[in-house]
């Protein structure tokens, strides 16, 4: 089975029913996406496939049809993506376990909406839970990331 992960074509030997997260972490060695709940209810495993967020813990790898982007593929030539940079600038993470998924959802949001409102952010991020309750900082970071992204464009 061939997958495109963070711009690289890889070959894996996986049962089509295996969750994509298992294939990424255990077979491809891409451990950025995290296991949280295993039923698409927390968002820690979020990756982006052809621009759309996907909970990789629940998507059978045999149903993957597009290029996968994980948290490990956002930086380009060592330069952090604006969302990653904003996450650092705003000191979002507390324990940090959810942030790989949070950042991927924020990345997907900003790919569709350049300058999201609070409502846009709430609508996009409602499926990414943070047990530390860093939601105000997540919101601030997304707004800062929007500014950084527009400045780089």
């Amino acid at each position, binding site marked *: 089975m061939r997958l495109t992960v963070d711009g690289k074509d890889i070959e894996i030997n996986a049962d089509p029913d295996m969750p994509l997260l298992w294939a990424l972490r255990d077979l491809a060695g891409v451990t950025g996406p995290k296991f949280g709940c295993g039923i*698409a209810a927390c968002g820690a495993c979020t990756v982006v496939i052809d621009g759309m967020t996907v909970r990789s813990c629940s998507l059978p790898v045999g149903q993957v049809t597009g290029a996968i982007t994980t948290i490990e593929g956002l930086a380009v030539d060592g330069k952090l993506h604006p969302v990653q940079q904003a996450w650092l600038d705003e000191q979002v993470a507390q324990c940090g376990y959810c942030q790989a998924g949070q950042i991927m959802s924020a990345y997907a949001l900003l790919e569709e909406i350049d300058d999201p409102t609070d409502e846009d952010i709430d*609508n*996009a991020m409602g*499926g990414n839970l943070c047990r530390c309750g860093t939601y105000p900082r997540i919101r601030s970071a997304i707004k800062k990331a929007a500014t950084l992204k527009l400045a780089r464009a």
Partner: protein
Amino acid sequence: MSVHRTLLTILAMSLAGAFGAAAQETPAAPPVVVDAARGLPEWDKVYAVFTHPRCASCHVEDNRPRWSGAHYGGTRVHGFNVQGGSDGSGFGNPGLRCNTCHFESNSSVLHGPPGVVGWHLAPPEMVWWEKSSAEICAQIKDPARNGGRTLAEIAVHVRDDELVGWGWAPGPGREPAPGSAEATYEALTRWSESGAPCPSG
């Protein structure tokens, strides 16, 4: 130009006369007589399906799908701030689409996300959630609120559409809709043949 118009007029009059004669010789199809005694029991079967949570939970008018089942302690609004989408598509919002969690098949894990091809919310004008039998019956018969379908097309849609069919194969831990897609198709057909009567009130 005027010669052409005259010729066309003569041709049209000739054709109209010919078809008029043919129409007089061929009796028109008799109008469907509404047979409420036969039709209403069939509609009741359809109503039981349409208002079952597997169907009605995504036929809402407030853009927010519902969850229901014993483990939810009653029906509730779908978690995670999930919505049909600000663009009116029914497929979710940027960053959180229905297909973020709902894939081409049901999760095999209890409480995992159900799935089938094309998972999305019905348009709000097709609301069934908490609507009466009379209200849903009127909606189904109204092309402006049923996707521009004839009753025969609705029956086929119910029988053949994959997303509709999911209601009878909803995955582990969920009660399926009553009957089957085929039985609902047959009930809709018999109801239509009975003049599609709607309950009062």
